[in-house]
């Protein structure tokens, strides 16, 4: 691997930054087309009710209304990420299962007319008993939400490795604790929006999405249209965090309305609709039992984790598994049993989240600290002792290749003087450490790989075509930077065409953390193939060996004699003369065990590689109010080589906010099936003034298979930052948390519990 890189590894301004900070960048809600209609959705006021009838004819009589639809206008095809989870028709004709569920919709010439028309739709409901708590939902006799799932258990993930019970008996110290966490809102800056138009049998859509190809496939199934007649186009996305991965009810609604009306239709959800009716995050109850040897070695783990899944499957099997996997990819568990249950309730649908699993992950890490303390050990040493090392295999048989876990632990500890401070916390000040690993991609069948097409144009500028998706994290800029490195062409001279099902090839999308390791790898390979063609002609023209050719600043030159050089545009023109234009493709398919299945075969290679990270939070607790403040936060992240360190640091800082500071502020509040904080006033996303001083440390493990050694950048912090805060609370108080977020009322209870013990 060459180390004298020109641009990869440099702190460059992202290709998309200028348009975004000036407001030039267009998002779905900004789109305007001739004759475009505005859509509005009628939503269920009931948490659970049978639908006896829906009559949209009244809406059609309102002047200005051009179409009105309900589930009776659809084929009733049920969506599911897996064949065995197909339970979501998106517009149901039999019953509704949560407040805010899509029932019917209209398209009208303006928003006021559309709103007015909704009030003329008649829906005949027969309310049914509803259930909101996953524990109650599993009980016999609870209202049955879907006929096919007994006791409302949507998914049961059962993993059993080694001999857990025997190991627990042998353990020197065994501890069992239960931790809860309220589900979070994704709180993307951009509420969901979709624009659909239909002409000559072809459907054309824009929406923020994490994978256009998988979205087009789902829509073609639901609309019974051939796949080539559903086109999802590229548009900027105002954040996803896992919440824009799957086809959405709005996609079906806008498509049906566009087909009916023959006009383009735009549907923009309000902030409240986005919170109530698009997928949000699971509430979790995690019971964690750990057996440890006297020296701190983890002998066994036994887990029971309950996920409140809301009304439909969504990514159920994946969501029920991921918290376990990101933890077993970090630590060595010789014996482990995991029982994950995803349970239906009459609440909005719960999906995957970048910070998914905080009750489980923070619970594990905080419990580890309590056990370490009891054994007279330092928690950093316990993490180092149990942490996986390069070449090791996880409990469910994933081989770890590059691994900088140890380095992240040591770097974060050194920066914060962790050992000394943990050993002697001053009154109600604490320091805590959280570790995690993340798979870079996971099994998604033939969509697990990516391919790229590259052409070099007659002016020497480059066009890249790839299915890669950018949800705001900087993936587009990343692949432009990679192409710039390989082809020696400045970033500004590279145009990117991406995430458009008509022109781009399959890609995992901005999902499963695959963009850097998989998507950028395909771009690298394509560009290397194009580079060979350029080098061949340049060597011939300059009269030097191919091995002596370098490409830089848009020129090909002799590395031995840099005066010998020619612009790449001349090379390209020569190629055109020869009838062999510089075009190339490249693809990358990660080393994944495709026999692996989330429920039936939960073992085998999960991903091509894994990233690692350690966060250290420093907190102060106000003894009188229980209020936590976080003066400083340190995160160390093994992301392989950082392609753009500035972008990685940005992701790390965002993660500190979204997982770390959110651990003291964010959580959905419910009154039965009513979401009490569907807005950004009472749903407490941390503000700039709430942010700590941050130290971000990049550890470059140089992954052997990653593009220039890169892996995913940022997500480990999203999955360990809350652990650091929870552990710091334990360090400050000697007590474990019981529920996240650690709002002052919950912290006060912990302080009172501590006093009561004394």
């Amino acid at each position, binding site marked *: 691997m060459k180390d004298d890189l020109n641009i990869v590894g440099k702190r460059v301004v992202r290709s998309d930054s200028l348009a975004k900070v000036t407001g030039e960048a267009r998002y779905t809600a900004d789109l305007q087309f001739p004759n475009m209609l505005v859509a509005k959705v009628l*939503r269920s006021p009931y948490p659970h009710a049978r639908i006896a009838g829906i009559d949209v004819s009244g809406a059609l009589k309102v002047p200005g209304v051009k179409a009105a639809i309900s589930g009776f206008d659809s084929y009733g095809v049920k969506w599911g990420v897996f064949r065995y989870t197909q339970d979501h028709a998106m517009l149901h004709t039999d019953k509704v299962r949560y407040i805010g569920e899509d029932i019917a919709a209209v398209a009208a010439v303006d928003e006021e007319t559309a709103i007015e028309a909704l009030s003329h739709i008649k829906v005949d409901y027969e309310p049914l008993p509803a259930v909101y708590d996953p524990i109650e939902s599993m009980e016999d006799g609870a209202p049955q939400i879907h006929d096919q799932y007994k006791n409302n258990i949507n998914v049961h993930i059962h993993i059993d490795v080694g001999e857990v019970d025997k190991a627990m008996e042998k353990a020197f110290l065994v501890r069992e604790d239960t931790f809860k966490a309220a589900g979070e809102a994704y709180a993307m800056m951009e509420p969901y929006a979709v624009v659909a138009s239909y002409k000559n049998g072809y459907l054309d859509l824009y929406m923020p999405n994490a994978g256009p190809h998988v979205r087009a496939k789902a829509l073609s199934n639901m609309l019974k249209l051939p796949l080539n007649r559903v086109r999802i186009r590229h548009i900027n996305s105002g954040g996803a965090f896992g919440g824009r991965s799957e086809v959405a009810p709005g996609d079906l609604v806008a498509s049906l309305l566009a087909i009916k009306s023959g006009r383009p239709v735009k549907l923009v959800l309000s902030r409240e609709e986005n919170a109530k009716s698009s997928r949000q995050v699971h509430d979790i109850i995690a019971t964690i039992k750990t057996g440890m040897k006297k020296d701190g070695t983890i002998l066994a783990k036994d887990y029971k984790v309950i996920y409140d899944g809301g009304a439909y499957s969504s990514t159920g099997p994946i969501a029920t598994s991921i918290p376990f996997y990101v933890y077993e990819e970090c630590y060595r568990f010789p014996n482990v049993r995991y029982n994950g249950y995803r349970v239906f309730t009459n609440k909005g649908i719960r999906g995957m989240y970048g910070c998914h699993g905080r009750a489980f992950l923070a619970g594990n890490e905080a419990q580890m600290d309590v056990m370490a303390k009891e054994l007279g050990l330092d928690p950093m040493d316990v993490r180092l002792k149990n942490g996986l090392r390069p070449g090791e295999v996880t409990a469910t048989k994933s081989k770890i290749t590059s691994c900088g876990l140890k380095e992240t632990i040591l770097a974060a500890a050194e920066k914060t003087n962790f050992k000394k401070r943990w050993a002697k916390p001053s009154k109600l000040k604490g320091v805590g450490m959280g570790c995690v690993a993340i798979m870079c991609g996971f099994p998604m069948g033939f969509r697990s790989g990516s391919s790229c097409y590259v052409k070099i144009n007659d002016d020497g500028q480059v066009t890249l075509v790839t299915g890669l998706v950018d949800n705001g994290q900087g993936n587009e800029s990343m692949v432009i930077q990679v192409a710039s490195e390989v082809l020696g062409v400045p970033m500004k001279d590279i145009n990117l065409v991406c995430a458009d099902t008509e022109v781009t090839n399959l890609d995992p999308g901005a999902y499963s953390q695959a963009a850097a390791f998989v998507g950028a790898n395909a771009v690298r390979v394509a560009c290397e193939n194009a580079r060979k063609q350029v080098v061949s002609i340049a060597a011939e023209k300059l009269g030097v060996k191919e091995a002596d050719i370098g490409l830089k600043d848009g020129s090909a030159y002799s590395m031995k004699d840099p005066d010998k050089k020619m612009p790449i545009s001349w090379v390209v023109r020569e190629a055109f003369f020869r009838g062999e234009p510089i075009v190339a493709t490249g693809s990358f398919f990660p080393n994944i065990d495709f026999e692996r299945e989330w429920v039936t075969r939960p073992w085998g290679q999960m991903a091509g590689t894994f990233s690692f990270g350690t966060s250290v939070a420093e907190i102060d607790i106000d003894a009188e109010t229980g209020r936590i403040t976080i003066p400083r936060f340190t995160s160390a992240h093994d992301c392989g080589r950082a392609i753009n360190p500035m972008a990685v640091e940005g992701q790390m800082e965002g993660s500190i906010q979204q997982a770390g500071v959110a651990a003291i502020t964010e959580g959905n509040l419910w009154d039965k099936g*009513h979401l009490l904080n569907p807005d950004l006033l009472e749903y407490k996303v941390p503000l700039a003034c709430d942010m700590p001083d941050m130290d971000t440390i990049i550890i470059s493990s140089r992954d052997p298979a990653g593009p220039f050694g890169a892996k995913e950048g940022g997500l480990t912090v999203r999955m360990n930052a809350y652990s650091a805060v929870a552990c710091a609370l334990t360090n400050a108080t000697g007590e474990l948390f019981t529920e996240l977020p650690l709002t002052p009322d919950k912290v006060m209870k912990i302080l009172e519990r501590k006093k009561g013990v004394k």
Partner: protein
Amino acid sequence: MMVLPKFEYKKARSVAEAVTLYKQQKGKARYLAGGTDLIPLIKHKLSTPKAVIDLKGIGEMKTIDQRDGWLAVGANVTLFDLKNDSVTGKYFPALYESLDATSCETLQMRGTIGGNILQDTRCLEYNQSLEWRTARGFCLRMGGSECNVVKGARTCFANYCSDNAPALITLSAEVTLVGPEGERRMKLGNLFTGDGIKPFALEAGEILTQILIPMKKTKGAYEKLRVRDSIDYPLVGVAVSAAGAKARVCVGGVGLAPQVYDLKNAGDAAAVKEAADKASADARPVANGTLTPAYRKKMVGVLLKRAVKRVFAEGK
């Protein structure tokens, strides 16, 4: 569906003109100042005025003057301008702190002191869209039969969330009201009815035109319980102003009206504790905010003691 429903817009140039416009609308109008409280209410269809009468153009309501031993603050003065007026910080530190703690600076530049005092009371089950409230079923205040937070209750437990009214009450502020029946003046503390349906003792068409604060130097502080350090409304707010050893304390953020407590000797720790315990006991928070009621109740006393302690420890 946060579309702003249609309404007529009228702009008044004088208080008299505003009152005349109100009369013309036959009571189906709302006065608009900064709009930071009113516009969200209209979007949520919690207020459905036929017309909105904009007071922002009334110059006489925008001034800050000292006269006859009072500081007369026009109701249109923005929170930001009042905060940065040199008199506020020097004479009324409790008010300075409450203004500084109100929302964020961007909204302080928009919101007015009059509008802040007359902001509607708030509840997690009330400040929601019409669709949300329809699904939930209307509460007492919306014409339903009982409170949606406290099952069976025939009274409203919404919270009055102005940061600044409690501070002004500790300063013995008064207000001038002008309406169809003429002008009157009352103690700010008397503006609150304790009635959930009609929280302010305003007659139809009355405009709060100015706030009058006695020009006496005070020591003071404002303590605010909230989850984030900006934007959030108070879950409990405690203002203290003192002259000599005498202090007046006012608790806001819990219930429909601010509660006042007088301390004859704020240096007496036992007396302060007694007042704190009483304030905690008096407070009846319910589960209509983002933190638990039991915790908020406890914090009333904690913040009271903290505010008093800060005033007397800092020797302000």
